[in-house]
């Protein structure tokens, strides 16, 4: 079903994040070696590194693309307590000759006092809005009031989550029916705290973000399914574009694909390994719990995604 194509990434330390752009033709990787690399897919399907530059003075945890309407824009966040916004400059013909494009730093967001663990652009309809979260449990929402000027960002909101945050996710829905929401996952390993996943909802009337904890309070969070077949820590999860397929990667070095059948039973439909070798136990059935109910599809998905991404949840 899948063909593994290995890429010589040539990062000097761990790669912490991979991110496709809006159209799926570019890819950005970031690493502890403090650099970000941008990969472009050529017509023959090969990935070529077209830019590689030092972005931070610490491990770069996440990299994310802005909607192409705002240009070719990346945001990165790092252990060095900053997040940065980068823009690709076209027309530097010298670099183009060598097949390298030029990325320049538009801004550095220095408000955090601890490691910035995740950075995400808001859905396009909200404008150019960026959310960051940091290890001291603060979610910050920045906005560039002028989308043509990427160097001016104002801090709009600062939400204290009390727990060390590891990941955030915007509600991708652009419907007016759902207000903008951010799900925040925590990697706090203290089992006694509840609320490792929190959802913040932006309320236009009160002009502030109101909180919803992961308990069954205002926002109903249901367990759609639970998977345990990684037998190890699950580090990352990712949805496909139609939210029908979920990929999860665990500390066993494998990617597992999950799909719901007609009964909303989630089952493992594939196990992938980087070197293409067969995986022991591919026949293992995903221990999916029967799921009940079905909320607004997309919001639920983002919540579940964030929940699993917060890996100690």
């Amino acid at each position, binding site marked *: 079903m899948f063909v593994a194509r290995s890429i010589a990434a040539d990062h000097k330390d761990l790669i912490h994040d*991979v991110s496709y752009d809006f*159209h799926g033709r570019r890819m950005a*990787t970031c690493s*502890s070696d403090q650099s970000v690399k941008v990969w472009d897919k050529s017509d023959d399907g090969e990935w070529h590194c077209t830019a590689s530059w030092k972005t931070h003075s610490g491990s770069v945890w996440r990299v994310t693309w802005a909607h192409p309407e705002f240009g070719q824009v990346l945001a990165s966040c790092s252990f060095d307590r900053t997040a940065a916004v980068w823009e690709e400059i076209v027309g530097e013909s010298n670099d183009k000759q060598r097949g390298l494009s030029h990325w320049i730093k538009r801004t550095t967001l220095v408000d955090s006092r601890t490691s910035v663990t995740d950075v995400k652009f808001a859905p396009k309809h909200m404008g150019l809005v960026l959310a960051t979260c940091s290890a001291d449990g603060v979610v910050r929402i920045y906005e560039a009031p002028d989308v043509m000027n990427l160097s001016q960002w104002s801090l709009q909101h600062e939400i204290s989550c009390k727990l060390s945050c590891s990941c955030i996710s915007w509600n991708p829905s652009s419907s007016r029916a759902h207000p903008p929401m951010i799900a925040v996952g925590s990697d706090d390993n203290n089992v006694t705290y509840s609320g490792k996943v929190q959802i913040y909802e932006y309320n236009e009337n009160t002009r502030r973000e109101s909180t919803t904890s992961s308990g069954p309070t205002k926002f109903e969070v249901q367990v759609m399914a639970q998977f345990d077949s990684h037998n190890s820590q699950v580090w990352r999860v990712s949805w496909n574009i139609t939210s*029908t397929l979920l990929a999860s990667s665990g500390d*066993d070095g494998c990617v597992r694909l999950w799909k719901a059948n007609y009964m909303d039973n989630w089952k493992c439909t594939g196990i992938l390994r980087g070197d293409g070798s067969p995986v022991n136990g591919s026949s293992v059935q995903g221990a999916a719990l029967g799921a009940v109910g079905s909320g607004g599809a997309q919001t639920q998905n983002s919540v579940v995604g964030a929940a699993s991404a917060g890996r100690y949840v």
Partner: protein
Amino acid sequence: MEKMSCPSTVSGRTMFCHLDAPANAISVCRDATQVVVAGRNIFKIYALEEDSFVERLNLRVGRKPSLNFSCADVMWHQMEENLLATAATNGAVVTWNLARPCRNKQEHLFTEHKRTVNKVCFHPTEVHMLLSGSQDGFMKCFDLRKKESVSTFSGQSESVRDVQFSMKDYFTFAASFENGNVQLWDIRRPDRYERMFTAHTGPVFCCDWHPEDRGWLATGGRDKMVKVWDMTTNRAKEIYCVQTIASVARVKWRPERRWHLATCSMMVDHNIYVWDVRRPFIPFATFEEHKDVTTGIVWRHQHDPYVLLSGSKDSTLYQHMFKDASRPVDRANPEGLCFGLFGDLAFAAKESLMTGEAGRKPYPAGDRRYPIFFFKKPDVTEQFAQVASALSVFESESDGSSRMDWFIKTARRYLLSGKPFAELCDHNAKVAKELNRPQVSTTWTMLRIMFSDPGNPAPPANHNMSKLGNIPLMNSFNLKEMSSALNERNKENRQDNLHNLETNLNNDENEETEGSDGQAEYLFGDAELDDDDLYSMEHENQAEEAEFSLPQEAFPLRHEIVDHPAAPEPPAEKPESPQVSGSEAESFCLTPMESFSLISVSQLLYQPQLTPSFFSPVVREMLDHYAEQGDVQMAVSVLIVLGDRIRKEIDELTQEHWYMSYIDLLQRFELWNVSNEVIKLSTCSAITCLNQASTTLHINCSNCKRPMSNKGWICDRCHQCASVCAVCHHVVKGLFVWCQGCSHGGHLEHVMEWLKSSNHCPAGCGHLCEYT
């Protein structure tokens, strides 16, 4: 050097005590039982007890505070346990003898430096030798038996920030300077340094010799870097470089760990980091206890790698245990995963995870494939140093279901308007069928059958039949139509008996139907039912139809429809079984009960008074279902094609949501034309306004390069036609493409043609045109 036993590998705990004032420097005595804390307003000795610090001695005595007590640095002699030296901010170098009987322990006072003394350093093996480095740029060597310095070394440059006697050479010491240089001196030759090299850009705040006398020198600077230099070669060679996140104020090699060193910063960052120089990007361990900048760090015992002491501006003195350190690498995500738009999956993971079990953390739930004794506990430091990630992209094969080709093709080929309703449905059903999506195809056909009903208040043009007219005829018409629909499908599946079927069905003379396989597939979306059952049902149906002779009574009519499960069934079925996808064959079975209910529904379906509103809830549920399953394309397409027939059934916000999602998807796949068509055809005001925004285009005249102010073709400044094709020299109407560099262009086809042969501008302006 004498080897000492390690006193506290296990015992001890992380503890702290409050000081009265911020600390500037700390130092431990040789046997690691006491620590001295020095600062601007503090100079105390604490005893390190098992679980607390106990104040032993306050060296700040006397009525009037002397600047001699204001310490920038302190060092406890490593041979003589009663001897301490401090560097005072007023330029004095003071030694203290704890063995003195009176309260004032001050022994010597050297006031030779003119400015603050930044550092004092005892010789590691020579009892009486003390070295100082000062802001005034001089280093002085004192013999504690004399009243004044024995030699003065001039760095010939700015302030001295650190001086350190070498562990390897008896006579050598290193000095670091504010201008970024490091100098090596021979203690016997005060006239000139042995060697000098530029280590950092900006001040070098600290340096530290490797304790295992290997000639390694670590330096830390304001440029946030720690560099390790090999001094054994002729030229100082940089062998490692660690990039930290703040300027480096102190650096100390970790005892017994060849590659490790601890750093702290005096700006911004309050943490203490322990680095493995071989992995310079991520700290091996971090101590995060301090609330303000850490000013002094020292390993408690020179052979114990697990206990670190630190003093801070926040007026605390800490003992850090290594077991309580946070390990940033444990929290660092070793994997990246992202789904691409086309269903490809990018995956980056730590190589050790990908290749073997070696680097694997045991999981409580247990991987029971290997007994526990197979695990040789790997050396955590070795494991830490060797790390890399492998990046791979999993691309779905062309026939893979996760690939998004179907979406693009469907979007391109669907007809949403411009034809009668029935034709649109047929066309779309055909498209879906060709793309191997039988369920969607069936849905389209069903929709057509349901809403092509002449009883429909808004019937399509080609179905204008009187409602009260000959009902049987209407039914036969419907059947016929459906048969031909089936026939179309059969056409694709079963080329062999195509003609046979076609004639049969078209003539309404179905003595015998072949290709029931195809019909069975049509009925249930997938060829997964018991074929015999279907076959018989279908057969019966067709046979009935053949006998059909326009009876007037209701009964035969009903009877006939009873035998016609095809039409009503899938829509009635769908809400009950949300997804009948190709892979879930086992899930579907038609019980007698179900078929009974289906038949009863079908009886209702074709009653004359039946209106499309009867179907609306079903269709609405169906659309919801598709949207829920991630196929918002289907929901929107049906919504557009059905138009008013269904629109009122679905609330405006949901519609808008679907539209927005679909448009977003289309734009992701760069299907701009389809996206625009959808926007145009939508009835939601929020959607239609999408392509009404930013529709103004400001253009410049291609001749005189000035903005075109008026409407029309002629530039009112140079009075020439502005948009002339540079290739054919005719006025361009419609698509005009131009180079943004030289503003020449023309017909899209012409320019494309031109660019095949030349990169230069067709207008002859010499510009190397770039079209994006």
